[in-house]
């Protein structure tokens, strides 16, 4: 696509963003509210505009799709899948293996309301599963939380860059709103990715020792050491890859912490309250892992208080509280079941937080 604006859904933008980045293959299992992603990518097979895009397969389950992703990505190709809550739960099996085998790929969870079948409305209730390593064993995914259709389009590039730099799966955690919302979006021309996979990818073993992508190590000491290398990698990422946005936090007495679609509502509320003379700002984590702990701690040390708002009953708020370490008060406003907080509800909550002078 050229540098002109296109009007499309977040899910479609995510699909085209991946194609523009140089996606080679997509392995699918449909689930609302993410299905425009596989539908778009099924249509684009054979489009000469994306010569690197070779294959689309609809799998029989999310267990199969994530396994196909692992196989495809083992060859060093750019591979992706997308799903929503119930499917994301099935994907956890493969994500645990892939994190340990250090296989880079992109996955999106267009989060719906849970638990169980819940409904197809927006929630951010997969936060724990996304950021804490939702499968068995100790591992992390990079988690990017877009809040606009534009970011749905640009995060695949960011995601693949991180995935290949760290040899780790990267998750784009959207929600039913960021997936279904239609907005203007631009696709800047991207350079073709040139990731070096020669030291690990499987394929031609001509003239080299075999490459073995494996999560198993029966020797306890060796497994300890292998995992220590992975944990060091996570610590490097926590130092270097944190992304967040601050809006009017400098003189704020109270800072709203919100990610994804909620940060859009919160930003509008900040604007409204500022007009009323209330010193409120917005802190928006863009990477949910690695979490912007240090930046929040700094704001806390300045005596600011926090209101965490999420589309769940309180998940990220635990990380916010860990970050501020009891230095200041952290209030919480949550909505779930497919509902979202209105500006008015946020205003009301801010005005009842006692420290803020009315």
């Amino acid at each position, binding site marked *: 696509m050229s540098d002109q604006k296109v009007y499309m859904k977040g899910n479609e933008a995510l699909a085209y963003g991946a194609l523009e980045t140089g996606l080679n293959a997509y392995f699918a299992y449909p689930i609302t509210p993410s299905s425009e992603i596989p539908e778009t990518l099924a249509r684009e097979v054979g489009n000469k505009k994306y010569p690197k895009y070779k*294959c689309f397969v609809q799998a029989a389950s999310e267990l*199969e*799709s994530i*396994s196909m992703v692992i196989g495809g990505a083992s*060859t060093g190709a750019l591979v992706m899948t997308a799903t929503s809550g119930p499917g994301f739960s099935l994907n956890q*099996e493969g994500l645990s293996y892939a994190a340990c085998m250090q296989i880079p790929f992109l996955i999106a969870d267009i989060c719906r309301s849970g638990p169980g079948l819940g409904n197809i409305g927006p929630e951010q209730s997969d936060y724990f599963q996304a950021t804490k390593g939702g499968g068995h064993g100790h591992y992390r995914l990079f988690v990017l939380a877009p809040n606009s259709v534009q970011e749905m389009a640009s995060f695949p590039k960011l995601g693949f860059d991180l995935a290949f730099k760290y040899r780790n799966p990267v998750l784009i955690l959207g929600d039913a709103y960021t997936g279904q919302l239609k907005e203007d979006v631009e696709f800047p021309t991207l350079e073709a990715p040139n990731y070096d996979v020669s030291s690990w990818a499987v*394929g031609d073993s001509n*003239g080299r020792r075999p490459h*073995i992508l*494996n999560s198993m190590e029966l020797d306890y000491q060796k497994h300890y050491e292998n995992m220590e290398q992975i944990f060091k990698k996570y610590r490097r990422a926590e130092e270097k890859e944190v992304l967040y946005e601050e809006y009017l936090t400098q003189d704020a007495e109270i800072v709203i912490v919100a990610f994804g679609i909620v940060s859009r509502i919160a930003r509008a509320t900040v604007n409204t309250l500022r007009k009323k003379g209330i010193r409120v700002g917005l802190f928006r984590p863009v990477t949910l892992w690695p979490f912007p702990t240090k930046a929040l701690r700094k704001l806390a040390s300045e005596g600011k208080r926090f209101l965490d708002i999420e589309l769940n009953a309180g998940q990220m708020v635990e990380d916010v509280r860990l970050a501020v370490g009891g230095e200041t008060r952290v209030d919480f406003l949550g909505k779930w079941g497919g509902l979202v907080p209105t500006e008015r509800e946020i205003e009301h909550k801010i005005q009842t937080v006692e420290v803020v002078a009315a």
Partner: protein
Amino acid sequence: MSQQSTFKIKVGKIESLTENPTHYCAGCEHGTLTKLIAATLDELHIRERTVMIDSVGCSVLAYNYLNCDHVVAAHGRAPAVGAGVKRLRPELYVFTIQGDGDALSIGLSETIYAAKRGTPITVFVVNNGIYGMTGGQMAPTTLPGQITTTTPYGRDPALTGTEFDASTLIGQIDGAAYVRRASLVVNEIPNPRGTVYTIKNLLDAKKAVKNAFKVQTLGGFALVEFLSTCSVNWKMPILEAKRYVNEQMIKRFPLGVYRDTFGVEKP
């Protein structure tokens, strides 16, 4: 040799085998299959273009023995991982070695759909009627009445169904191009001067391995099921276990070609 049959034995190092000693129990045919596959990779000169997908079970350590690239899959998912590799790199040879529990219980969906889509990969299933690695629990292929640690009074078909016939099932799938059941177990031939063993089954098994790779060259899905013993978990002496395959298992799991779309079985 009393029987008149001729075959060539390649003497010397098999390039596709590493020098690591295998962990397989005495009498187990997993090592036999590993060697047959290694010899075939050598004969076809495809070792360096081959990716093995290791499964979970006794076959999981095959990456220590077969000198090619490996991806170790989650339990049951090997055909799906293999499909992923093959879709991105169709010029590579991709194969799995899976147990009956892996391929026919937890991974049945992956096995069936790889066949149904005609994914050009090769799936080798070792059928020893039991979960070996986990210590002898009931497998989908456990025979009615057979005692395992989870059927301590014998497998009761009223409760758990009967044994699972993989070759018949996959042989019915139109996407599959080659389905064959072979045996890795030697046969006894009574002889006045003592027992003689014939390796005809192994030669057939070797042929099946080669045919399965040929089918992959032709763009088809191949599955070969190998009857095998598990004397340790069957709690039988090795020779008795081999007799059990040749006399009991073979009745429920007849050897033969169950599907051959490309006609590779022709001499």
